[in-house]
C-alpha cells in the first residue's frame, strides 16, 4: 500500500491550540513538509514569535528558540552568524514583525542575512484579543479601532512584502494566501523556494501569508476565509515582488 498523505516528520504528533479555521495550522504543515522535502529537519533552528505561534516548540520536530516580542530576526541573525550550517527561520505574526519588531526585520533584510522569514499576516493581534495591527485594513473594526481603522489618525497599513522587496539585499519576497487547495499549493511552492534559497546560501528570503483569524474577526471560519480572499487580498495583492534567487 502506498501512503498518499501523512504527517510530516518535521512536525510533532501534537494537537495545536489554534482556533478552528485559524491559518497557523496550515502554515505549520507547509513549513513542516518543506523541511522534510529539503531534508532539513535535522539541521534547522526555528525562531518562535510572541503571538499565537509562541508555542512553536510544541508543534515542530526541530530545535526551536523563543524570541522576545518582535526580535526573532535578531535571534535568527545571531544563530546563523555563528552556525552557518544550520537552516534558520523565523515564524512571525504581523504585530510581532511589523510593529514592535519593525526595526529587527528591516535590518536583518537590509543586511541580507541568509535566513528565511515566514510572515503570517492576519490583519490583527490574535493572541492579545484582536487589537489593531500595522496590517489592519482601513475601516477594519478591531478592539482598538471600534469605529474602524481611520487612516487619518491610525495611519495606513504596511505592505511588508513590497517593503522588503524594495530593499537591495533580499533575494526573494512574495505574498501568498491559503484560502483554497490551489493557493495552498502556491503558498507551499513559495515557502519551499524560500528555504531552498537559504540552503543554497543565496540570502534573505521572505514569504508573507494572508491568513484567517476567525475568532477575533468575529466571523465563521468559512466567512473568514472568504474575507481573506476579497477584503485582504484587494489591499494586499498576491505575487512575487522580488526574486533574484536564480542570479549570481
Amino acid at each position, binding site marked *: 500500500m502506498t501512503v498518499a498523505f501523512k504527517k510530516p516528520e518535521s512536525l510533532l504528533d501534537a494537537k495545536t491550540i489554534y482556533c478552528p479555521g485559524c491559518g497557523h495550522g496550515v502554515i505549520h504543515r507547509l513549513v513542516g513538509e518543506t523541511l522534510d522535502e529539503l531534508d532539513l529537519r535535522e539541521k534547522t533552528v526555528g525562531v518562535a514569535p510572541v503571538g499565537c505561534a509562541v508555542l512553536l516548540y510544541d508543534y515542530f520536530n526541530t530545535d526551536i*528558540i523563543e524570541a522576545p516580542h518582535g526580535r526573532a530576526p535578531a535571534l535568527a541573525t545571531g544563530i546563523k552568524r555563528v552556525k552557518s550550517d544550520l537552516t534558520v527561520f523565523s515564524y512571525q505574526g504581523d504585530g510581532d514583525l511589523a510593529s514592535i519588531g519593525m*526595526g529587527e526585520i528591516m535590518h536583518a533584510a537590509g543586511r541580507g542575512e541568509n535566513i528565511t522569514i515566514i510572515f503570517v499576516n492576519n490583519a490583527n493581534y490574535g493572541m492579545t484579543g484582536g487589537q489593531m495591527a500595522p496590517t489592519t485594513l482601513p475601516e477594519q473594526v478591531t478592539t482598538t479601532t471600534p469605529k474602524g481603522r481611520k487612516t487619518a489618525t491610525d495611519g495606513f497599513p504596511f505592505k511588508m512584502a513590497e517593503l522588503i522587496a524594495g530593499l537591495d539585499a533580499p533575494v526573494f519576497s512574495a505574498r501568498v494566501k491559503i484560502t483554497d487547495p490551489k493557493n495552498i499549493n502556491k503558498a507551499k511552492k513559495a515557502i519551499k523556494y524560500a528555504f531552498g534559497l537559504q540552503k543554497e546560501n543565496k540570502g534573505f528570503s521572505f514569504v508573507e501569508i494572508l491568513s484567517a483569524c476567525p475568532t477575533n474577526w468575529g466571523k465563521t471560519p468559512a466567512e473568514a476565509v472568504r474575507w481573506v480572499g476579497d477584503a485582504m487580498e484587494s489591499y494586499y495583492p498576491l505575487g512575487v515582488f522580488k526574486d533574484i534567487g536564480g542570479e549570481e
Partner: protein
Amino acid sequence: MAEKILMKGNEAIAEAAVRAGLKGYFGYPITPQNEITAYMSARMPDLERAFVQAESEVAAINMVYGAASTGERCMTTSSSPGIALMQEGISYMCGAEVPAVIVNITRGGPGLGNIGPSQCDYNQATRGGGNGDYDLIVYAPHTVQEAVDLTYRSFEISEKYRNPVIILGDGALGQMAETVILPPFKEKGKTDEGWELTGAKSRDPRSVKSLRLAEGTLLEHNLHLENKFKLISRNETEYSYEEGAYDVLVVAFGTAARVAKTALKNFKEKGHNVGLFRPVTVHPFPYEELKKAASQSKKILVVEMNRGQMLFDVRLSVQNDEKIDFAGKPGGETFSPEEIENKILSCLK
C-alpha cells in the same frame, strides 16, 4: 614567559574575550566603550568568527541570545543607556538560562548624562533592570589586568551556571592604558550539555524558552533560579581584603576602589591604621565576609562614584548604621585621592 604589553582597557577586554574563545560579538557604538566594537570589527573576522554591528542595543543583545543558544561563546558590550535597552534580552536570557558575557563600561546618567566614568548603574546591574525575578553574576574589576582576567574567566563561569555574566567597568577603566599580561588562546571545545540548539540530528528536538504557562511550572523555575543563585553565591563570591582591625575600613569597588587604594597608601605611610574591603563580585555581594571584616573595625567608609547604591548592600551587611559613613561622587566624575583622604580624616577624628 608571558609578555607584558601596554593596552587600553577597552581593547584589553576585547582581546581577553577573543582569547577566551569568543565566537560571536554583537554590538552597537556608544562612548566610552567604542574601542571594543572597533577592535572586534577587525579582530573577529580575521579569525573567521562572527562580528555584527547591530542596528540597536535591543537587536545586539537578541543576537547574543540567539547565537549563544547554540552553545557558542558570545558577547556584547555597551555603556549605560545601551545596557538599559538590553534589559529585555537580559531578562529573557536569564529566564531561558542562556550563558553569555555582557560588558558595561558605564558613564554618567540618568538619561544621556555624560560620558564621564560613573558607578551609577550598580543598582541596574545588581538588582536587574529587566522584568522578573532573576540574578546576574556581576564582576567589578578595578584595573585593566583584573578586567582581562575576569573577562577571560567569565565565559566559563557563565556556562557553568547557564547564567549571563556582567563585567561592570566604567569609562576610566575602559579608557586608561596599563601594562597587562594577556592569557593564552583557548577554545571551548565541542561539549554538548544537552540544551544547546544545534539542529535535532539523531536526537529529540530541544527548545530554549522562557515561557512557562502550565500552572506551577514557572513557580518551579523561579525556585530553581533562586537555588542556582544561592549556589553561585556560595561558590563564586569574590572580594579583596587584608585582614585587620582598622580605625577606618574603606569599602569601594571598581575605579573608586582604585583611587581609594592610592589614598590609603598615603595614609599608611603616615602611620594611620586604615584598610580596604573591595567586592570583586558586586552580585553576589560578599555580605558575610564584609560583616566579619566590619565587626573588627571602628568605622566603615563607603566610597562610590554615585549617590550611594552599594551603600545599601553595605548597610544590609554591617547592620550598624552608626558605624557607616558615605562619600559619593555622582555626575560622571572621578574622585581625587585627596577627596577620599579628607573624608577618611574626618572619619578618623
